[in-house]
């Protein structure tokens, strides 16, 4: 899993049967310190409730497909959860 920020939603009417009924989000990938880590991608939403500006966790590749039922849907990024608390620290007094 990695961390990302939802920056938008996407709607498409014509799609293959495997992804019918799924909600699409535009997600910007982030580093562990929440700095931007690259270009945005489209992900499905297995939490069902994510929206714009939400900090989310997402799964990539085969694990993304496993988020859905049936699990062989043609998906390569899926939002797993909406983060309500995120703690990060990368310096310690006694490393």
């Amino acid at each position, binding site marked *: 899993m990695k961390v990302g920020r939802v920056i938008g939603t996407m709607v498409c009417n014509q799609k293959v049967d495997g992804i019918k009924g799924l909600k699409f989000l535009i997600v910007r990938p982030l580093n562990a310190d929440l700095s931007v880590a690259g270009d945005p991608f489209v992900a499905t939403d297995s939490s069902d409730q994510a929206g714009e500006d939400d900090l989310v966790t997402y799964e990539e590749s085969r694990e993304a497909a496993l988020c859905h039922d049936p699990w062989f849907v043609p998906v390569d990024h899926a939002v797993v959860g909406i983060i309500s608390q995120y703690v*990060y*620290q990368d310096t310690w007094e006694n490393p």
Partner: protein
Amino acid sequence: MILGRVCGTVVATVQHPFYEGRKQLVVRAIKPDGSWDGDNYRVCVDIVDSGMGDIVLVEDEGNTARQLLSAPNGPVRSVIVGVVDMITMGDPMPDLPVGEATGYLGEGDSPGDA
């Protein structure tokens, strides 16, 4: 498997049912000398009770993760499988006999030729 340091925690109330009740930690990859390995990181499921600042061993492979968590169809890839107590490392790049190779294989030249 990758070596990492636990840098943070993730709490989510709305999430995939598989992750309910599972502790999720942010682990940044480190090199054996303790320095960061770039920006590489993972949010991992913890099954060994590790905590903030610990150096841990992370299994970053889907099938292994699903076996460890006994979830044949779980959408999970990264699992913390160990808390590291100590790392010992010899010379990371021992001197190789540069220039003493056995010669190159050209026409009429085999390694066995005297």
